[in-house]
């Protein structure tokens, strides 16, 4: 046997699958799995639709008026926030851990999907579910609370986009630090707690002491919620909006870096 090496022998002619089709194939299977996982489905679909109502009842109309807020100001960010945190963040943390521990991620990496396509494809169903809830909430609030259509739709869209990206990336990072689906419910608590309490979801930032509020504005989900709320009320100044976008961008860069640096594709040995 001589030792001629094949340089770049051409691949045989065959239909090449595009990245979008690859992700669609994975996402389709994930939809099936989501439908069969009652726990994930409950957390992702029911919790975010029920919780905002409890927030609503927690605040006295009088308190809100004193802070210059309407009930719509409170309900919309709470609704969007719960959807992002439960339907996207918590669900994805569990999904990434489960797929990793079953060696599904490792097996997928032996196929033609790129790493990013695996992460995005697996996230799509949860992300779509989260977005659908947001839409439902917006329509519901518009009809029931007389909130109306967003005054600055571009800000609302930007906020939603940042929120989804950050929650998905945070879910991937959290999954990397969770050994099992059970422990993921604990490792996810800090992010959930910080976001719900400090990012203007369960408690409007106006109700917090000034110093604490200005610190909380820097939390990962705060700019997304600020943009969302501003998108509806239309009272977010250009300067504040830019600040929120800058903060969100910074977090997005950090999140992408963290996923690339820490994401685990295989269980620990």
């Amino acid at each position: 046997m001589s030792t001629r090496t094949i340089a770049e022998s051409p691949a045989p002619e065959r239909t090449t699958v595009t990245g979008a089709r690859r992700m669609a194939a994975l996402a389709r299977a994930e939809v099936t799995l989501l439908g069969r996982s009652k726990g994930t489905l409950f957390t992702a679909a029911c919790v975010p639709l029920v919780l905002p109502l409890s927030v609503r009842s927690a605040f006295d109309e009088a308190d809100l008026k004193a802070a210059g807020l309407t009930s719509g100001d409170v309900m919309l960010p709470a609704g969007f926030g719960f959807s992002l945190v439960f339907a996207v963040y918590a669900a994805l943390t569990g999904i990434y851990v489960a797929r990793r521990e079953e060696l599904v991620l490792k097996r997928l990496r032996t196929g033609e999907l790129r790493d990013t396509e695996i992460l995005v494809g697996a996230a799509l169903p949860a992300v779509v579910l989260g977005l659908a809830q947001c839409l439902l909430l917006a329509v519901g609030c518009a009809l029931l609370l007389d909130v109306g259509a967003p005054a600055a739709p571009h800000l609302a869209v930007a906020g939603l986009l940042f929120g989804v990206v950050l929650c998905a990336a945070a879910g991937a990072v959290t999954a990397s630090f969770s050994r099992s689906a059970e422990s993921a419910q604990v490792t996810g608590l800090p992010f959930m707690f910080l976001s719900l309490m400090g990012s203007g979801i369960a408690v409007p930032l106006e109700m917090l002491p000034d110093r604490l509020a200005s610190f909380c504005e820097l939390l990962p989900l705060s700019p997304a919620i600020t943009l969302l709320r501003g998108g509806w009320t239309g009272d977010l100044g250009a300067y504040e909006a830019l600040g929120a976008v800058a903060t969100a961008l910074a977090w997005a860069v950090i999140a992408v870096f963290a996923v690339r640096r820490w994401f685990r594709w295989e269980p620990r040995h």
Partner: protein
Amino acid sequence: MNTNEHVIEVTDLRRVYGGEFEAVRGVTFAVGRGEVFALLGTNGAGKTSTVELLEGLAPPAGGRVRVLGHDPYTERAALRPRIGVMLQEGGFSSELTVAETVRMWAGFTSGARPVDEALAMVGLAGRADVRIKQLSGGEKRRLDLTLALLGRPEVLFLDEPTTGLDAEGRKETWELVRGLRDTGTTVLLTTHYLEEAEGLADRLAILHAGRIAASGTPAEVTASQPSRISFELPDGYLPGDLPPLAPLGITGHDVEGRMLRLRTNELQRAATGLLVWAERSGVELRGLDVRQGSLEEAFLRIARDVAVSGAAEAEKEVAA
């Protein structure tokens, strides 16, 4: 094999876990187009660690890998559509059915076979609507195999393809691999079954503690092993009372109690000399055992070099 292309080239390959444990310590081999190449070894010999580097799942700590001329780690995208991979352990979502799993894979595999054909190929057509969690170990292996074959790969990596299969399933897999080789597919497989390596591989390498301890065609590896003659020393005789061993082609000996074991590369000459001597001296060689070198012998001898605990495990596996 009648090939002049190296589809897989591995040079001085190294893999280190956690900056400490060196699982692969300088492995070198090449596989030609259309060859079936087996990496044989006990658990922990470094088979999977090596194959994962060829599959591009991790970068090597040292050395070089080329598959179809590409670096499998940095040029993953170019290589993936041309190779098929079966990992040591599945990696399926237990809540999906067999057909759903194959359909998903077909959705991101270039030139994928139709789902029905893929399932029929490995005898899973009747199990299409069964959830993965209800499959037997053997059925999961067959599902794994069909996913590896889905894109009609040029190069196939099979990590312990028949572990967990019953005798019949193992034979079917062998037939499948032979059929693939006949159509020009290059196959690299790992196994701890001697029979599998001997019957299936054109060439093989025995891995031990991260290094290649022996390699070549099964016949070459067998031929490199000394044959053995053992018998009980006759009463009143000491090893020194035997005729001079070197002129008989005997290259070494060891004594255990009254048992004497001789090693030789010229079995007929050694045995004849010994038996003629016994006949002339009028002694009986009790427990006489004359044994041609075999792959099993080679494998066992290499495995025995492991620390005592590891060796015991290796013996069990060969017996299994």
